[in-house]
């Protein structure tokens, strides 16, 4: 219970772990050698290579970090939903609108995007489901996604890539 709101323990633990992870990652990308090397590789692989960054190692590191973070997400999600099943595989698809809205290369964007998309999903589900007969909750983020991609392809906090000839 937080004030008058009943909140299950799982959500509290999840929020705490998410906060810890976010602080950790922000620090990692900003202050450690590996984090800076990763950002350099994302910016330009060739330049990173010529500055002595092993792009191969960075890719391996990036994949393993991504896998570890997803695994933590899976553990938390399993805790909240109280079980694991095959439908978890599709959860990976649902995060795409979130990261696109926030901007692909922004940690802050992921938080804001997650909140906005979660609210949008539930509002759309609540108000539009009676009209369309269910299922709007699942499809609303993707409709928003098309709009975001057409209007602001790099999201709210993503770095805009400009092509000059």
């Amino acid at each position, binding site marked *: 219970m937080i004030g008058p709101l009943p909140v299950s323990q799982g959500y509290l633990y999840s929020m705490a772990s998410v906060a810890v992870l976010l602080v950790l990652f922000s620090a990692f990308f900003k202050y450690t050698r590996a984090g800076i090397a990763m950002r350099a590789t994302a910016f330009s692989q060739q330049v990173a290579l010529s500055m002595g960054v092993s792009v191969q190692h960075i890719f391996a590191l990036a994949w393993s970090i991504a896998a570890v973070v997803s695994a933590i997400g899976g553990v938390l999600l399993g805790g909240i939903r109280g079980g694991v099943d095959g439908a978890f595989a599709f959860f990976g698809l649902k995060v795409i609108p979130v990261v696109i809205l926030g901007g692909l290369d922004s940690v802050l964007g992921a938080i804001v995007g997650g909140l906005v998309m979660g609210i949008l999903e539930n509002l759309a589900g609540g108000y539009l489901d009676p009209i369309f007969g269910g299922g709007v909750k*699942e499809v609303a983020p993707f409709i928003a996604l098309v709009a975001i991609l057409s209007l602001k392809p790099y999201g709210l906090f993503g770095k805009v890539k400009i092509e000059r000839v």
Partner: protein
Amino acid sequence: MRCGDFRETYREDMAIFETSFARGLLVLFLLALSLAPAFLSFFWMDVLNRILIAVIAATGLNILTGFTGQISLGNAAFLAVGAYSTAFFAGRMGLPFLLVIPLAGVMSALVGMVFGIPSLRLKGLYLAVATLAAHFVIEFTASHWDGVTGGVNGISVPAAKLGGFQLDGDRRLFYLILPITVLLLLFAKNLFRTKTGKAFVAIRDQDISAEVMGVNVFKYKLLSFGVSSFYVGVAGSLLAYHANIISPENFPITVAIDQLGMIIIGGLGSILGSIFGAVFITVLPEVLRVATGELATTFPKLVDLFAPLKSGIFGLAIVLFLLFEPDGMAARWHSIRTYWKLYPFSY
């Protein structure tokens, strides 16, 4: 048989068949194929029809992804548009299939072009995501627009009729699917000898350079989405005639991924590659099914492993092809052919 490259004119360089022998061989192959219903069992006729439909869809995707360089994950949805248009035009309006199939293609092309509009500003990962969104939006429409699509229960498609003759059953339907496949493949092969096709390839290789050379990038990208979706729509229409009843479960996202697998394994940017890939991916589960059936007596547990085995081998094939033969089976086929051309005296 000629033992080298003797292209002396542009005409020879542009020719589809290097020799009239090759053309003769293809005609012979098609004749043999058209006799297939007389020899194949009911089960393999069904597989053959699904192969041909997959060939059309894979060719469509290859035009977009392999030749124009625009990745698309919305293929299952465009397939669905073609199939539902068929159900609507043939079932509700009672049009003959000669009209229904092109109409289904056109409907799919229009929808494809709408979802191709973001391609003006997006490429790579972002475009993949935009087309993925198209998939979910269309899937939602298919399962909720009950009046037209029949919702989650699905909708039935009446059999194609030519005069009083019903084209139902795999054997008869085969003679509808085969000519359409050949026609579309021929069109695709010829498309890349024209200005439009060359513009597609220019956009794939370097979009900015293409723009500088006077190619209207947006127009040709949209056109590519249109042509590609037309193919996929026709495939969807044939699929509807083949399946008789269609529902949203026929078009999950895995269908789109399978088709991407087809063109990667077969060869991106190659018509022959789409054929190889479609045959490989469609036949793979059937061969596995037969193999697990044969081995079931000695290894009874194998039957339970069938589904994971199928996805495992599918994924392994894609990864291995990407690592060792990124140009796909078509490139392998080409190198095998050149090896045998001058066989004992290759130097």
